[in-house]
């Protein structure tokens, strides 16, 4: 009998808050994190909205508890802030008191800092301080910096499956626990805004010049965001041993690939359907058991059609409340899955459904519409959280209320 997997700690930082409580506060106030960048050097400074964490990189050093230390990229610092909160909330003062895995997710690693010094790095005539960023080019750098700072050394990994990266990190961690390899794994992802990704999505004509409008007929793309989120996963045995406070159960999950197109989903949402369906099957639940779906809802033309079709195929006329929280946080790529997993836990803990901001008109391809109001006191027991990415990588998580 495989062990059940529980969420016992959460930490996060996004454009709408430096911690979980701050995020919840601004979700309830319907306060979007979208605006214009203050930190990114780009010609799109005043034309493409982004959801940027307000702090400068120096301030993030302070927040992360590494003031004055060198070689920390913005990606690492965001991650470290979230990691420290997750550990604190889980009541872990010494990460080595139990063999603990760390499964991180990143799409472009320390690109936020390396892209500013890259041409110096490749120029033999230049030398100086920037050389300390050479090793931050890859995705492992942020993982190792975070791990080394808090003392995680048992099993570390970094996953990169584009926008589903941290959902896959949570899944991999849960599977390590269920297989009995580890009893505690911290999973999530971190992502800083970069010129690289902004121009990447813009070159794909996937970025809206207005605040994004998920599931709206008039939507025209996503807005990028930055942030980080980690969840502490523990086996049932460890929860009993440590008397850990359980926040929710990670009851099901699924990963599927569409094998359809390098960057676009199938119009019928085959991959999204398979991921949600398989996650439900794994958790032994039926569509009727789900009260809320935190959709991927990037507001790109193709995602919302595909995901909406998949919702209709799975739930039909009884589609539960669903909303995209991307108008709050922007699309935080590798961090999105973990950020939205935390929002899903918050929905269960506080019996809430978050509104899908900026929605006006129903999409002509769909008969369903997202929830546009903040629902307090809504009975949320089971939530599906979706993350879909490039390369056809789809992931769904099923998060459930803990009932002993």
């Amino acid at each position: 009998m495989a062990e059940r997997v529980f969420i016992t700690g959460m930490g996060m930082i996004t454009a709408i808050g430096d911690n979980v409580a701050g995020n919840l506060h601004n979700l309830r106030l319907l306060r979007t994190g979208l605006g214009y960048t203050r930190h990114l050097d780009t010609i799109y400074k005043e034309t493409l909205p982004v959801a940027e964490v307000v702090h400068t990189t120096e301030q993030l050093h302070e927040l992360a508890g590494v003031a004055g230390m060198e070689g920390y990229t913005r990606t690492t610092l965001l991650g470290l802030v979230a990691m420290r909160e997750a550990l604190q909330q889980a009541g872990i003062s010494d990460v080595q008191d139990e063999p603990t895995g760390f499964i991180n997710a990143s799409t472009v690693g320390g690109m936020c800092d390396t892209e500013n010094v890259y041409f110096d790095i490749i120029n033999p005539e230049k030398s100086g301080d920037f050389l300390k960023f050479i090793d931050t080019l890859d995705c492992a750098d942020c993982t190792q910096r975070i791990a080394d700072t808090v003392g995680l050394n048992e099993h570390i990994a970094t996953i990169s499956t584009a926008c589903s990266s941290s959902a896959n990190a949570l899944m991999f961690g849960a599977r390590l626990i269920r297989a009995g390899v580890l009893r505690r794994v911290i999973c999530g992802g971190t992502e800083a805004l970069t010129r690289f990704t902004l121009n990447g999505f813009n070159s794909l004509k996937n970025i809206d010049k207005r605040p994004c409008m998920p599931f709206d007929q008039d939507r025209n793309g996503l807005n990028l965001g930055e942030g980080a989120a980690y969840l502490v996963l523990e086996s049932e045995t460890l929860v009993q041993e440590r008397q850990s406070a359980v926040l929710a159960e990670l009851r099901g999950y699924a990963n599927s690939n569409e094998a359809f197109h390098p960057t676009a989903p199938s119009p019928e949402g085959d991959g999204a359907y398979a991921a949600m369906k398989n996650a439900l099957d794994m958790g032994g639940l039926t569509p009727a058991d789900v009260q809320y779906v935190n959709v991927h809802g990037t507001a790109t033309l193709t995602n919302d059609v595909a995901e909406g079709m998949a919702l209709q195929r799975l739930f039909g006329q009884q589609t539960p409340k669903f909303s995209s929280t991307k108008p709050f946080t922007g699309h935080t790529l590798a961090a999105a899955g973990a950020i939205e997993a935390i929002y899903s836990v918050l929905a269960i803990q506080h019996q809430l459904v978050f509104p899908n901001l900026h929605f006006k008109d129903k999409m002509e391809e769909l008969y369903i519409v997202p929830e546009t109001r903040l629902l307090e006191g809504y009975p949320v027991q089971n939530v599906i959280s979706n993350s879909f990415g490039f390369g056809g990588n789809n992931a769904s998580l099923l998060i459930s209320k803990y009932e002993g």
Partner: protein
Amino acid sequence: MKGKCYIQGMAAISPQHTFEGDSSAQPMVAGSSNMLSCVEPDYRTFIPANSLRRMSRMLKIGLTTALKCMQDSGIAVPGAIVTGTGKGSLQDTERFIKEIRDYEERALNPTPFIQSTYNAVNGLIALQQKCTQYNNTFVHRGFSFENALLDSMLLLHEGAENVLAGAFEEITGEHFYIKSRIGQWKSETVPNNALHEHFSPGTISGEGAAFFLLDAKPSDKSYAAIAGMKTLYKPSPEKPGTALQQFLQQHGLSMPDVDLVLTGSNADSNYDFYYDVLDGMLQLPFKHLCGEYDTASAFALWLGAKMVKEQQVPAQWFPMLQQQPAQLKNVLIYNHFFGEQHTFMLLQSI
């Protein structure tokens, strides 16, 4: 992870002639610089010409190796696709960074951006093989392939069949230069066939792709069993010794039971001391064949599995071999990546 898995098919593109024909009959390829590059096959037999034109080098190498591995196993559609890569398509990343600057962020071609995403190769394999199952990509230096292998073992343990696991890496002139600035490569030029005679700081760079079709059950086709794997992150100098003893013990073995160790020893005087724990065991280094890169352990696994299957060490690739081992029942791989990520893998004959 408990339980063995079996290599039912495999393929490698590397700086040696590993892809086509009888690789054992091929002489060692010796380069003349500190940057070893792959011997690339004719991709047209694997990838349609119109797709090929759009694909960058890393995608061609990765996809072709995966397809050859599938062909070798006789399986058309894998049950899952899991890969590891430290750096993905460097050429595409470099190109997109430059185009952002050169075109001042305007009218950019998205292709290098798309292909620079680390899961691009996985997506292509899934697309080409119509595999809609589990798909994951690990990007963690010397633990990239290791986590892909661990994930594959978990999948088999969970009941999946025919998992395609692999790794791919490329080196570019630009990236070679970048890493030279932090002393990863030797300052003197060392041809790969003389690598082990030049013990000094740094090593030589390399690249390659290797894919494996893994299953929980053996068959007549099996190359070898992967009996276990253990990773160590930034261990103290004493740790690998005790961890090795434990690892072998868990598999009912002690050091004399190991017929051969393939070591990642790369003549880098900064980190070579870790391999001292293998003293007394029959060892062969492999990085004169493939160079150093994040996922070189996948090449070692390919090499080890080939030896176990053939019960022979390809002598032309190992001039340091004094005599063939009496048997190749238990083959250990010990590799580390610049002293940070350490891996033991145990291969066994069927």
